[in-house]
């Protein structure tokens, strides 16, 4: 059941999962807003989609001048990019930091220089570093995945649950695992095998191959990331195993098609929106132009927007598949 990889969907995916399209006065062109954008290396599908969606979002507005300092996993370099934005006097910075804590100081500097900073996904360690934060819910993602597995396996108390994490030394991975463990704990389950990959296909494949070998019988697997999921599925296919079901993470179109097909081990995936940065761009524009989110909040843009991490299953996949990102 593999499907095509045509890049088809960018434009509509940018509008987010079902949330209202921009409407009303907020879309009226205003003064041109120069926005600097920086994110970690877009070396896999989700992160690639983050950047593409942000760019596509900016395209839609004539009054946004987007400057993309494209991704890096070197915080030293990312700091330097923000410094350059400050030097250049951009109006706003949308920043998805490789490491929130490490970028906090330079973001604070930007705020002090009068630049509107919108923090995306990985949170700064100081509330003064950003005007608004758009957060994915990593802990919630783990909770969603764990809760789903609990629902499915609740009546098998000694079920074997395995976990294939992403890059293990990122705080977000730790948050996801924590949420997962907490949710499993609620129904008396625990993670019996845990491996970590690196958000890449090859990493997912290698980790899964060894995991399947180490655990002769599994009931459920949660894989943090649908990009590495391509490799994970290849490994599962290779091992010829199907006694378990797999829950994905992030919500790529590919995985949703697997869910839709019904004959795959993938039964569900937990969405982690790849449109956060695009949301950030919109918010930055509103903030600089002094507008509010008129269709939602009358006075000013809120300080924090936390996105939901819904579980996609065969029952509701139709609702999400059109807006999912291609890995």
């Amino acid at each position, binding site marked *: 059941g593999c499907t095509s990889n045509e890049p088809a969907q960018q434009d509509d995916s940018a509008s987010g999962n079902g949330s209202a399209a921009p409407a009303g006065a907020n879309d009226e062109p205003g003064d041109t807003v120069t926005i600097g954008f920086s994110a970690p290396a877009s070396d896999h599908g989700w992160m690639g989609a983050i950047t593409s969606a942000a760019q596509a979002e900016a395209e839609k507005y004539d009054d946004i001048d987007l400057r993309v300092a494209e991704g890096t996993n070197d915080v030293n370099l990312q700091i330097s990019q923000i410094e350059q934005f400050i030097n250049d006097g951009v109006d706003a910075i949308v920043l998805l930091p490789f490491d929130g804590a490490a970028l906090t100081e330079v973001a604070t500097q930007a705020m002090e220089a009068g630049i509107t900073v919108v923090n995306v996904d990985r949170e700064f360690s100081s509330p003064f570093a950003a005007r608004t934060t758009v957060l994915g819910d990593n802990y919630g993602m783990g909770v969603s995945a764990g809760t789903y597995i609990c629902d499915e396996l609740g009546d098998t108390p000694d079920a074997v649950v395995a976990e294939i994490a992403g890059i293990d030394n990122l705080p977000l991975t730790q948050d996801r695992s924590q949420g997962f463990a907490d949710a499993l704990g609620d129904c008396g389950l625990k993670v019996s095998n845990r491996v970590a990959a690196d958000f890449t296909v*090859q990493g997912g494949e290698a980790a899964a191959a060894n995991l399947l070998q180490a655990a002769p019988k599994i009931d459920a697997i949660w894989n943090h990331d649908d990009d590495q999921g391509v490799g994970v599925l290849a490994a599962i296919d290779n091992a010829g195993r199907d006694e378990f079901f797999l829950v994905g993470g992030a919500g790529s179109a590919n995985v949703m098609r697997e869910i839709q097909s019904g004959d795959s081990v993938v039964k569900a995936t937990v969405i982690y929106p790849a449109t956060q940065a695009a949301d950030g761009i919109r918010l930055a524009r509103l903030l600089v132009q002094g507008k509010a989110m008129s269709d939602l909040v009358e006075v000013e843009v809120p300080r924090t927007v936390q996105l939901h991490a819904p579980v996609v299953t065969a029952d509701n996949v139709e609702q999400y598949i059109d807006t999912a990102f291609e890995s």
Partner: protein
Amino acid sequence: MSEHHPSGTPAATPAGAQATEAADRDVVGGRDVARRDRLARLGFGRNLGLVIALALLCIVGVVTAGERFLSIDNIMTILRFAAVIGVLSVGMTFVITGGGIDLSIGSVMGLATVWATTVATQTLATNTHWLVMVFAALAVGTVAGLVNGVLIAYGKVVAFIATLAMMVAARGLAEIIANKRTQIVTVKPFLDFFRADLLGVPVLVWIFAVVAAAGWVLLNRTTFGRRTIAVGGNPEAARLAGIKVQRHTMYLYALAGLTAGIGAVMMLARTTAGSSTNGQLYELDAIAAVVVGGTLLVGGRGTIVGTVFGVLIFSTLTNVFTQNDLSISAQSVAKGAIIVAAVLLQQRFAAGSRST
């Protein structure tokens, strides 16, 4: 300026005190060295350290993970896991034996997976034959290797730097081509062929075996191999003996590129997807395997058997770690320690088999 080398040989290298002293140890008078040499060439003496290391690992595996560790399934898992790096390591063995180094093969492999899975290539493959994809991957690998080779042999750019540049550039190019997406393999027959088993052994493992065997023959039984050893051992002497050193050097990198292309095909079969992240850091794994296997990093002496052992040791290690649910971090620390231990062990036995 010129260098009149004090001690002639390894001196051409800055390898330092250790090289000189190792060389000293080498000066053996006895006449029955010859027989031992021959034994060593068969891989007994020289690889004893490696055999012991691998055996120890297996014992640890059995003790901690039980019989499951020695099951056919698990052994195939280890071998499948070893196969891709193994093929790259065979190419790397040639480059290192020839006195060079290639930091780019991981990236080049990634680039080849991406190139072979572009819409254009896959459409062509669907319309004609899946061999088109194989050909694309091999061609990309070989061409990248050739570029390395030309830069190093004719441009006289130090191998470390030329291939470092290629590593960076190939990764970037792969990202541009893939547009940061994971490109899924849609050519069914390709997957059917490479993901199959043959006589109970996965095709991937067969490929590794064939590449290793071909590499062994090439290095030990052909004029190409002899030239490689000569070029790596003393390039000036090789040149003055009439060997086309520059051209041969170029071939060596092209060969490494070719193995990267083969690795790419295997990677595609294994992961069913082309991605610019494929092969990241594989070059370091391959170098570690080659050196742990006993090939001299200064060139002039190489062993495919050792390399295969080196690869197996590392993949068994990972397997044992996973069986025991060890964290990746602890794995890293242990891996570092084991690399050093393996090299020390290997040195001890290699020296032993040579001098006593």
